[in-house]
């Protein structure tokens, strides 16, 4: 595709430039330092050398500016079309018609036209028709289309309009138009959970000294400033409906909720709320519970969680071996247990996560671990419903009762709870010992978003369809480990200046 191509001519210019600058540099090294000229001639000679060096520097700078080159070296190839859309097309089982109105004068419009035609050729079930609305205005008007770069997806009598030039959005649209029922994701609120209407996020500044969030509230990892609006938007981009549920004001979880998301509750549940949650699972509901550090479940909720095969420990995991940047409590996970949710997920990280203690689940419930911390991890006690200081990790005492070893961090449970009617469908639940990883501030980074979305997809029983990630726009950043940051510091701040001095000494030594 055009974004991925490297233009040969500018690349050759650049290589020539690098060679020429190198040749001039080495030629300069061979200039005599002592000329045996008369003092006046020596003065002119030295001025000439300095002037020539300045001219060469200016020339080289100007030359490279005038021969700009663009190469996509990003690991994720974000400027190159993804293969996810193709996977969706490959798996298409039912006919879909796509009429795409592209802007003939817009390079992006022409690019997506070509991409869509390739997708159409890949699977005969996808009928693609690309239309230049300026050439065929009556067709555009017959669809009611009054703008360009718009696609109309039609399948089984359903119609969906998508305005995009990203084939991944089209792929998500194909999944949406084929979906036979509306999926509603409900966000539980009423216990100071992350609000679904909050889109605030913090920037993250990583330095050799540690981690900070770049604002006044940055000393708190768990803060009301974090919302979960970005996850909500990501779900809506997949075509899911979202709504807020407050159990304190309703006797039960609404039937419409295909999944109930409990994101970092801070205050305890009422017994009636726990009962409503249990009744929801008994009727075959799906629960995505993120119980962060310090949350204390009331006895009935704790009993329910134990029925699902885990107990919440009032501890935080410290992982000196696998963590994000310099904070050992920002546990990083790269190895997962085999599961549809974690099949295509790379590194994820959890800013302050509690361990889950495995217990015997109730009969009829199957529990599967999703991921754990590394073998070097240990725990430290945390206060109930407190806040965790970001800088505490280094001085935090090791728990006296816990040995070093991997800690279970997330589980998936499936089955029938005691008391459920025999004909009621099986429930699904995912329990994670952290909520921050899915919050606005951390969702877009590494694979956190992919994992959170995969969990929801499994909970709503869509794990078989291809996962197509929608992009969450974040400022471009380079993620470096602590060792990498130290290496760069040593190279740029120490070795590079020292090498200049060393070269000078070496030249002086040889010519003295």
């Amino acid at each position: 595709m055009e974004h991925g191509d490297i233009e040969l001519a500018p690349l050759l210019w650049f290589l020539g430039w690098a060679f020429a600058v190198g040749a001039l540099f080495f030629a300069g090294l061979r200039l005599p330092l002592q000329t045996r000229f008369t003092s006046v001639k020596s003065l002119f000679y030295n001025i000439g050398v300095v002037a020539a060096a300045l001219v060469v520097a200016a020339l080289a700078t100007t030359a490279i500016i005038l021969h700009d080159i663009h190469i996509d070296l990003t690991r994720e190839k974000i400027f190159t079309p993804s293969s996810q859309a193709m996977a969706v097309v490959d798996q298409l089982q039912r006919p879909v018609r796509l009429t795409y109105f592209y802007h003939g004068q817009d390079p992006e419009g022409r690019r997506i036209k070509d991409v869509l035609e390739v997708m159409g050729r890949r699977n005969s079930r996808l009928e693609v028709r690309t239309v230049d609305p300026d050439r065929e205005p009556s067709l555009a008007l017959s669809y009611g289309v009054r703008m360009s770069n718009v696609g109309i997806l039609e399948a089984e009598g359903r119609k969906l309009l998508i305005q995009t030039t990203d084939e991944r959005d089209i792929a998500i649209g194909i999944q949406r138009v084929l979906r036979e029922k509306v999926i509603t994701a409900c966000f539980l609120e009423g216990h100071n959970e992350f609000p679904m209407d909050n889109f605030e996020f913090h920037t993250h500044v990583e330095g050799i000294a540690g981690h900070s969030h770049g604002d006044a509230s940055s000393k708190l990892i768990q803060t009301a400033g974090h919302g979960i609006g970005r996850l909500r938007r990501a779900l809506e981009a997949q075509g899911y409906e979202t709504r807020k549920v407050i159990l304190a004001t309703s006797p039960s979880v609404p039937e419409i909720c295909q999944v109930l998301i409990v994101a970092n509750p801070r205050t305890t549940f009422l017994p009636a709320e726990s009962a409503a949650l249990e009744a929801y699972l008994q009727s075959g509901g799906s629960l995505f519970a993120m119980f962060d550090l310090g949350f204390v479940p009331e006895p009935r909720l704790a009993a329910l969680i134990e029925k699902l095969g885990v107990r919440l420990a009032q501890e935080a995991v410290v992982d000196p071996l696998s963590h994000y940047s310099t904070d050992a409590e920002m546990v990083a996970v790269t190895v997962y247990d085999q599961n549809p949710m974690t099949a295509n997920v790379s590194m994820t990280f959890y800013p302050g996560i509690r361990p889950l203690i495995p217990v015997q689940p109730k009969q009829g419930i199957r529990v599967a671990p999703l991921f754990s911390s590394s073998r070097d991890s240990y725990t430290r006690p945390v206060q109930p419903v407190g806040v965790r200081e970001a800088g505490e990790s280094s001085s935090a005492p090791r728990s006296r009762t816990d040995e070093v070893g991997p800690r279970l961090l997330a589980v998936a449970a499936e089955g029938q709870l005691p008391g459920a009617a025999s004909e009621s469908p099986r429930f699904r639940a995912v329990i994670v010992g952290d909520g921050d990883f899915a919050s606005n501030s951390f969702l877009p980074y590494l694979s956190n978003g992919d994992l959170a979305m995969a969990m929801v997809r499994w909970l709503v029983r869509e794990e078989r369809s291809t996962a197509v990630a929608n992009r969450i726009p974040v400022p471009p950043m380079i993620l470096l480990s602590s060792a990498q940051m130290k290496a760069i510091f040593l190279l740029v701040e120490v070795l590079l200046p020292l090498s200049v001095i060393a070269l000078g000494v070496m030249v002086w030594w040889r010519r003295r």
Partner: protein
Amino acid sequence: MKNRTLWTALAAAAAFAFLVAMVISGALPEQRQLVKFEAKGIMKLEPDRISRVELHQGERKAVLLRTSDGNWAVQGGSALSAEMGKKLSLAVQFMNTAGPIRVMEPAELDGTNPRDFGLDQPRLTFTLFADAQPVLGVRFGAHNPEDTAQYMTLDGHQDVILMSRFVGQEWESVAGGVLAK
């Protein structure tokens, strides 16, 4: 001079020449604020040289002449108001300055329905004259689906042009003012 020194000097001279060649052959990225205005309209003639305009809308027709003081008057009738004269001058000027958004050549129009462009029964037709010679004949049709441009053809050409809507609007405004009389 030693051979090695000679080669070094030659290599340095070649490298210097290469950098000079890069500077000569390169170009600064064009920045919008530094782009010089260039008239890209479909009429190359200076707008001031247009002395006569024949305007048709349906059955109605008007002939407008430029007077010696630069204003406009209806042939055999009164002078246009200053405001209407300014509008007409601006409309004429647009034909010189406003470039087409898109030009669709006959090959590109294969398989399309000409009626879709609204050019078989144009909304407005006009001819511009300089020194009693016709310079440009234009027909304006329907708006495009986005409603940002208007289809247009020129006398003696098969191409269909998409012109920014404000150009046709200015002419329709002139026609509305002149043909209403």
